[in-house]
């Protein structure tokens, strides 16, 4: 198994679509290449930002192939295998290994409120089905919904799976994060805890190694500056970046990623509409975003076009 030093703000490209909502192959190549050229330390696809659940399994395989081919070994590529059906996840896992992806990110199927035992079985099934390094996606929601990897479950999975190398963590909670980090990093030094989006400042000093990015689609320079300030322990700059990213997240989190795609188009990257049931950003919304991004000094300091 290859060893990765995962770190930094890793980019999770959106899925460009044509006006008829079909997968835009050449747009996706440009998107992936854009991120690598702008300093992404890894590429991860297709996260929710990429409308993962609105893509067919065939489209997900196609996109995975394009991502691996376009990145061409410059940085590691992680393929997301979370689906509504575990059989599809296994299929995607097999395919990712075959085409030369570097690692797999997975979660037990959503929408079933799986118990801790069910999540354990699900991840062991996928993790023993592939030779690729595996990351899991910790996505607890309030009130006990969602799919939660508690510290205890993480510990059992590290014990069981030698290829379990890290976690995408979206708990965003001091106590939950610390429980996972203090247990996991002792058992498996180098275990990569990657924040779900860039709520990274609160977790970095406690052992988070980076994030899978939301705002990198429009502000890759800000993302790179943010991570560099963390490494330098320049907390003043880190706070400035974190707060700016936090304001961006507030702009984009509603009906994610509709607004984000709208803002990308405005910045000269034609990533097309968003698939239903998510709406596509309206002209008015895009104009509103333009003003906000100008006020945040994003328009003036971040790359336009591909």
């Amino acid at each position, binding site marked *: 198994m290859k060893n990765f030093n995962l770190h930094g703000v890793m980019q999770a490209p959106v899925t460009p679509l044509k006006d008829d909502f079909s997968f835009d192959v050449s747009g996706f190549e440009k998107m992936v290449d854009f991120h690598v050229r702008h300093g992404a330390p890894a590429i991860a696809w297709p996260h929710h930002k990429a409308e993962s659940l609105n893509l067919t399994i065939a489209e997900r395989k196609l996109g995975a192939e394009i991502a691996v081919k376009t990145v061409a070994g410059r940085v590691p590529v992680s393929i997301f295998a979370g689906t509504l059906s575990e059989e599809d996840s296994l299929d995607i896992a097999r395919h990712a290994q075959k085409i030369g992806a570097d690692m797999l990110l997975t979660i037990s199927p959503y929408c079933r409120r799986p118990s801790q035992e069910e999540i354990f079985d699900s991840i062991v099934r996928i993790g023993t089905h592939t030779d690729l390094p595996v990351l899991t996606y910790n996505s607890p929601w309030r009130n006990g919904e969602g799919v939660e990897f508690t510290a205890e479950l993480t510990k059992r999975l590290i014990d069981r799976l030698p290829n379990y190398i890290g976690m995408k963590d979206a708990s965003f*909670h*001091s*106590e939950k*994060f610390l429980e996972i980090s*203090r247990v996991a990093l002792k058992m498996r030094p180098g275990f990569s805890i990657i924040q779900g989006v860039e709520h990274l*400042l609160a977790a970095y*000093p*406690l052992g988070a190694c980076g994030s899978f990015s939301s705002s990198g689609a429009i502000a890759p320079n800000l993302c790179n500056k943010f991570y560099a300030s963390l490494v330098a322990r320049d907390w003043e700059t880190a706070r400035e970046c*974190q707060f*700016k990213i936090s304001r961006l997240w507030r702009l984009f989190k509603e009906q994610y990623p509709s607004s984000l795609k709208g803002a990308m188009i405005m910045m000269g990257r034609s990533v097309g509409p968003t698939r239903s049931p998510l709406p596509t950003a309206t002209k008015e919304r895009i104009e509103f975003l333009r003003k906000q991004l100008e006020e945040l000094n994003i328009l003036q300091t971040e790359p336009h076009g591909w």
Partner: protein
Amino acid sequence: MPTFRPGLVHTPVTPFKKDHSIDYDTYAKVLEFHIRNGAEALALPMPEGEDMSLTDPELRSLLKFAMEQVKGRVPVIAHVSDAGTSIAIERALYAQSLGVAAIVSHPPYFWHPKPSMVVEHLARIGNAVKLPFFIFNPPVESVGTTLSTEIVLELIEKLPNLAGVVDAGLDFVFMEEVMCNGRPLRPDLQLIAGADFMVSAGALGGSGVFSPLSSIAPRLVRELFELCRKGQFVEARAAQENIGALNHAIKAAGASGLRDGLTGLKTVLASMGRDCGVPRPPVRSAGEIERGHLLEAIAAMPFLKDEPRGW
């Protein structure tokens, strides 16, 4: 109003006798213990002080007793939270008349209030007093309602004396948003860690802590606090992990769905020679087996060996 920055705030437990009445002789020792062991201020009675289980007259007499015992050596922050707005206001006015340094209050229990009700409730309490006012964001489990960024921003607009948010909700997004949206409205707005998780709050620009674990491990709490005060957040990780382990063991004990840690806290306190009785009903005290597990876990924490035993 001059800015009141409370720093390292200890949150004492409330000791009870066998008949469940407040044990004031022991409470005097508790307060002295905290002052001697590094408290820069006291906040009482916080949830660890079982405020919800005390009657209104008891809450008043406890506060009065504390003020007389402390005699101005450190500032005392009075916690007044209640389901009813007028009850909380009356208690806040009483606390003010005793000379407390500040008031802290959280959203009203039980009613599952809409955000506008939370704003109304807290704005009326804050408006009633002439003291620095802190709003407490409880863990999501404990009172069924938490503060949102919008609630905090509205309260800043309504309350010139709103000094800060004491956050025990521990949500990164909330802390970030309070700081980046609240500070432009009130430049000296404080974010204070409402539990012993100081690194995350501190990295985001927070200062100070309301520390439940100061009853057990005041030295460790002080070490973590000093590292965070100096901005040494990466260096603070080891101390924060020790705090995390202690917190986990204590919260894991007890039968309450709130994971309030009350049983764990008092069980460990007794084992360290500071017997404060058991929590008031309906909170169950630990059975023999549970007590054994907890004390075994505590005994396996070498970092506790430097902590004070006895009073």
